[in-house]
């Protein structure tokens, strides 16, 4: 047993971890030390404020949009509680954030995503109040922002719409995964290799499960986006929050 081959051990280790990690990318309650709780909260608040300012403007123009925002928030929460069949046979959870970012834009998704995370922490004990800042930064700020940018950028380049949606949703997922790994690595540096080695460790632990999840999320978002467009002759325009774009 002294000299095990690295690929074999890695595979065994990952097979043990895989079913658990498909649960999502939330940092659990109390996992981060206090200083990182503060740092990530401070980093995240400006984005939330920006989104809130936009929302207030929208509400001032049409107060009925409050219901729509709440409906979308509930929709994203319910999506995150759904099971998503993935290639490894186990189930993972779609985040729905990519779809939201494409339909409503990243700033509003920052607010919606944060409220979803709050509900997940309070009703599902998934994530946490102390780690809300860190989770919101990776899931409600970086993820939607990447999805939205990728989608806009690829649309301008006249790429096939299906491919755009797929790339936006899955790249948003992967961005979230990278940011979460970095957050964990910064808080728990490796005793020998420091933050970089720790980042590599966290990235590789998540890698095997996050890539299929990202692909699955991409495919699902694609199907949903397609159906939404087919069901409504006006396409996505009908669902856009009035006065935002």
């Amino acid at each position, binding site marked *: 047993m002294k000299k095990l081959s690295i690929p074999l051990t890695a595979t065994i280790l990952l097979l043990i971890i895989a079913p658990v990690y498909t649960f999502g990318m939330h940092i*659990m309650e109390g996992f981060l030390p206090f200083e990182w709780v503060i740092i990530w909260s401070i980093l995240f608040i400006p984005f939330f404020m920006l989104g809130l300012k936009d929302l207030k403007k929208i509400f001032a123009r049409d107060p009925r949009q409050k219901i729509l925002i709440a409906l979308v*928030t509930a929709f994203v929460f319910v999506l995150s509680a759904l099971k998503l069949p993935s290639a490894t046979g186990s189930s993972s959870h779609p985040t729905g954030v990519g779809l939201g970012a494409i339909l409503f834009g990243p700033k509003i998704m920052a607010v919606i995503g944060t409220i979803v995370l709050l509900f997940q922490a309070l009703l599902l004990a998934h994530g946490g109040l102390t780690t809300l800042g860190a989770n919101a930064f990776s899931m409600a700020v970086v993820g939607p922002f990447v999805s939205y940018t990728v989608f806009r950028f690829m649309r301008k380049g006249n790429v096939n719409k299906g491919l755009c949606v797929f790339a936006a949703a899955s790249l948003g997922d992967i961005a979230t995964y990278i940011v979460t790994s970095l957050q964990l690595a910064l808080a728990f540096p490796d005793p020998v290799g420091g933050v970089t080695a720790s980042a590599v460790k966290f990235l590789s632990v998540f890698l095997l499960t996050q890539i299929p999840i990202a692909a699955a999320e991409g495919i699902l978002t694609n199907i949903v986006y397609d159906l939404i467009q087919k069901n409504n002759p006006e396409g996505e325009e009908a669902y856009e929050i009035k006065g935002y774009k």
Partner: protein
Amino acid sequence: MLIIDKIAYNNRLSQTNPYLKFGVGFALLILSVLWNNLWGLGAIILGVNSILIAVARINKKQYIKLLTIPIVFILFSLIATIFYVSKEKSDFLFSVGFSNCYIGYSMITLMRAIHILLRSFAALSCIYFITLTTGFNQLILVFKKLRIPKEIIEIIMLTYRFIFIFLEEVAELYIAQEMRFGYINLKTAYRSLGILVSTLFTRIVMRYQDMSIALDTKLYDGEFYI
């Protein structure tokens, strides 16, 4: 459908002052993240859990079930913080050798892992203390007292209402699809799930239109008075 929500309305502490419950829970939560003393964390874990079980009279079986999922999750997250790679063998308590380096854990990483585990467990107990004894209607009172922006509280309140409507709809749609072998293999499962999600989305838009009309007939002036 959501077990935490159900327990929150059915325990001995459900009628206690919500500000007190939230205050105590949140103060202990901050304390457990700030305090580096392992005995202190142990005391928080013991204290909070005994209040939950002895005073609030929460069903032990349900509570243990609620604890297991996050704890397993935390344990697996700890793997990456315990093990590390080094070329020297001296620091390790236990290690497996590869061609030119060693993988294992040392006293420092092990102590750190124990600390994280206790901290997470203490924080988890505190958050369960808040959510299992305080129903959401009471939490909204707390949010109001904390001066969270009015718009956010309104959205939170409305969302809380809609979540249960949607969960019910999803359950119905899922059963209907399952009866028609909608989840028999991966390909149909994706298609079914896609249909489910888009149906849900269409219903959201319909509900939005219906509620707008309903609000107009009730002379909605842009404010939900909470």
